[in-house]
Structures are given as structure tokens and as C-alpha cells.
């Protein structure tokens, strides 16, 4: 009798130890799964992409148990606030507007935005510098925006809803263009290829990825944009009151950067080193 009791007690203790050691912190990370190559889904519906892989590495560094949750882009920030997940990794640029509602970790990658058109468009061959940084300002930027304003007058431009790209077009920096908003980047690409919109604005890699996979003659035009309405790189979105998690992510991003993991993944998914 005593032995049986001992046996139960020791196995119970063993179980307790097993559970307590297995119980790492669990973190749910929200992503869209529709913005390749940042985050996307393969044919079987599995989430893939730069951020999905990076998230897994960050979780290893944080010794956390992570689940990646899918969420439509237009409900991304409300979903974070409503605690459907604890962090956002969805190609979300760090902007002042979003900082009013949520916090961001340090940036982990640079998102370079660009206009795209179909080959043969009248917008091809605009006389602008290769890249402009709106935060820097200056004569070059002003001149480029003027050229863009003239070229885009009366044109319809497609963007994904609630993005830095929509904010930029509605800011008046390039005059009064007709902005058409879509739920996903896929739909923007479809309507660009169908000729319903004259141009589209998104991450440059979103267009090159689409052109490569669909074989459609989508080409980038004008300068690449950064700074200003385009924010300061892509970071992890975290609730304002969740400062402990913010610290953890920042430390993990540091570690991932130092070990070269971010660069490695960026080259794998973007074809160039977009890490920051």
C-alpha cells in the first residue's frame, strides 16, 4: 500500500516538473498571410514568408512558445487591441499615426515603396531620382514630388486599404489623385494587370514578386519612397501596456541582427538585404 502511494506521489511530482519546464511563455503573433514575400500562404494554406520565419527565430531567442495567427489586414490593429494576439508582424511600417494607438519594437527590415504600372504605360520614364526620403526634404525631393504630381494628375491609383501607401496618396504630397482602396495586395495586383487602375503603390518587393510569379508585365516607375508618411521601417506592433513583451522583442531582434539571421532571411525572401 505504502509503495503504491509512493509511486503515485513520485509520478505526480515528475509530471509537475515536466509541465513546469515545458510551460514557456506563450505568445500569439498576428500576420496577414497575403503580402508576399513578407507574409503569405503556400498552396496547402500554411503560412510562409520572411516574417513567418523571422517570427519563429525571434521566438526561439525569447524562449517563447509561439503561435502565428492569421488576421485580415484591415482588422490588424483592432485585433491586437482586442487581444486576439499579442504582437503584429505583418509588414507593418512604424508610423507616427499608428504609434498613437500601439507601440512598435525597433525596426527589423526596411520597406521600400514604389509605384508600379503595366509595361507601355505613359507613366514610364519619369524624370525623377532613384530614391527619395520624405523625411529629409530638400530641393531634390520637392522637384521629384512636383514631377510626380504632374504625371499622376487625373490618374487612378490602387493601394491596399489602411496602409502607408494610402496615407501618402491622400496626404496631398502628389496632388489630388484618385485613390482606389483594396482589401488585399492581391486584388491591387489583379486590377493593375486588368487595367482598371493606371498605377499602384506598395512595397516594391510586392510588385516584383507578383511580376515574377504571374508573368505579367508589371514594372516599377518613379522613385522609391521612404521616410515621412512611409514611416521608419517595419517593426513588431505591440500593445502600449505590454512593455515587458516590447523589451523581449527588442532584445530578440538585436540578437537576430547580430547573428546575421535577419540578413540571411531577407536575402532568401527579398533577393537583397533589407534588414535594418
Amino acid at each position, binding site marked *: 500500500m505504502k509503495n503504491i502511494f509512493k509511486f503515485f506521489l513520485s509520478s505526480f511530482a515528475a509530471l509537475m516538473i515536466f509541465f513546469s519546464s515545458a510551460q514557456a511563455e506563450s505568445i500569439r503573433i498576428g500576420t496577414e498571410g497575403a503580402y508576399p514575400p513578407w507574409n503569405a500562404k503556400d498552396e496547402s494554406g500554411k503560412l510562409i514568408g520572411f516574417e513567418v520565419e523571422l517570427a519563429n527565430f525571434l521566438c526561439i531567442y525569447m524562449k517563447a512558445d509561439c503561435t502565428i495567427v492569421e488576421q485580415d489586414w484591415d482588422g490588424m490593429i*483592432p485585433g491586437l487591441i482586442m487581444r486576439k494576439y499579442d504582437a503584429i508582424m505583418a509588414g507593418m511600417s512604424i508610423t507616427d499615426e499608428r504609434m498613437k494607438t500601439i507601440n512598435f519594437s525597433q525596426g527589423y527590415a526596411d520597406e521600400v515603396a514604389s509605384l508600379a504600372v503595366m509595361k507601355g504605360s505613359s507613366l514610364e520614364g519619369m524624370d525623377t531620382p532613384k530614391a527619395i526620403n520624405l523625411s529629409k526634404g530638400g530641393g531634390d525631393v520637392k522637384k521629384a514630388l512636383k514631377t510626380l504630381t504632374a504625371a499622376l494628375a487625373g490618374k487612378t491609383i490602387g493601394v491596399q486599404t489602411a496602409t502607408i501607401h494610402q496615407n501618402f496618396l491622400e496626404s496631398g504630397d502628389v496632388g489630388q489623385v484618385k485613390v*482606389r482602396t483594396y482589401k488585399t495586395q492581391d486584388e491591387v495586383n489583379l486590377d493593375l494587370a*486588368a*487595367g482598371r487602375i493606371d498605377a499602384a503603390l506598395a512595397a516594391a518587393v510586392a510588385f516584383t514578386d507578383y511580376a515574377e510569379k504571374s508573368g505579367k508585365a508589371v514594372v516599377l516607375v518613379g522613385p522609391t519612397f521612404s521616410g515621412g508618411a512611409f514611416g521608419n521601417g517595419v517593426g513588431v506592433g505591440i500593445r502600449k501596456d505590454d512593455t515587458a513583451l516590447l523589451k523581449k522583442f527588442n532584445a530578440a531582434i538585436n540578437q537576430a541582427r547580430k547573428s546575421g539571421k535577419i540578413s540571411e532571411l531577407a536575402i532568401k525572401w527579398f533577393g537583397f538585404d533589407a534588414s535594418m
Partner: protein
Amino acid sequence: MDLDFMFEHLPRLIKATKLTIQLTLLSLFFGIFVGIFFAILRTSKNKIFYYISYYYSYILRGTPLLVQIFIIYFGLGQVEWIRESFLWIFLKEPYSCAILAFTLNTGAYSSEIFRSAFETINKGVVEAAEGLGLNKMHTFFKIKLPIAIRQSLPAYGNEMILMLKGTSLASTVTLLDLTGVAKHIISTTFRPVEVFIVAGSIYLLMTFVIHNFIKFLEKKYSFNN
């Protein structure tokens, strides 16, 4: 719940309601003709006409409206010869694609409503009309159609309300109707509860108007007075 916030965004939502009303009324207007046309085909003795109408209604009622609007908007936009034809002038615009999808959809449901209304017409009434020497055209327009319309009022009122709510799908093809603008506001304010409550209330108000309009018509054209 932040009432000030709700009132602050109310004007934009009311402005967007104009497009919702426009989409609803135009689709219902075209849909009535489509519905009556297919209801007549359905009562035809010609087997081909009958089956055209039967399968039209079967397919359109058997698939989600969202799928239909996507096929018309994103689907047809992929087909090269359509893009090169005169149809593209029409199909290029999200507005006309939405109207087309809604019209075809409500047309299918209305055709069923009108068909069953035609079928309930008392044979004696038609015989009486023929007895009085009315020709087929007259019997149809002066006797059968008015009775059928009165008969289908309650069911058609329902269809109007369904169509009104169905127009919210216009936001999926870039149109800024009531739902589209609501989503737009949410995407910058991140406050879905308040915005959707206001948008929902506006929809409710519109269904209230439709509901009472149909009730008024039912009373006015009641068989019992």
C-alpha cells in the same frame, strides 16, 4: 462607448449612405424587369424557355452573392477578349459591375417571387377576363400582372431588405458605400465597435423605411376593402 466620436464620423457615413441607396434602388429597379421577364419564361409552355429560366434562378440563388460579384469584377477582368471588347467600358468600372451583380441576383429571387404569384392567380379570374373579350395582352397587363404584383408584395418587401443589406458587398470591389466608408474610418481610428454601431443603425433606419413602405402598399392595395 464614445458618443462624441460617433457623432464626429456620422456625416461621412451619411454621405456614403447615398451610394448605398443608389445601388439598392438601381439594382431593384433593373431587377424587377429581369424578375418579371424570367417569371414569364418560367410559365411558358416552351421547354427551352422554361429551363433557361429554371437554371438562371437555380444558379444565381445557389451561389453566394460575394462569389458572384467577385466573378463579375475580378473574374471577367482576367479575360483578355472581354478587356478588348466594348463590354470593358462597362465592366471596367466597379460601380457598374456591382449593379450588374446585384441586378442578376435580385432578378433571380424576384423571378421566383413573381412566378409563385402568377401561379396563385385564380383561373376563374382569367376565364372571366377572356369571357369579357379581353385579348391575351390585355389579360396579362390589366388582370394578371396587377394581381401578381399585389400578391408578391410581402415577399418582395423582404427581397428589398435583403438587397439593401447585400449592397454592403460593394465595398469588396473598392466602392465606398456605407460599409466601405465604415471600414475606411475603422482602418484609421481602430475603433470598430462605435463605427459599426453607427453604420448598423443607418441600415436599420433604411430597413424601417422599406418595411413601412411595403406595409403601406399592402394596406392600400388590400383585397379586403
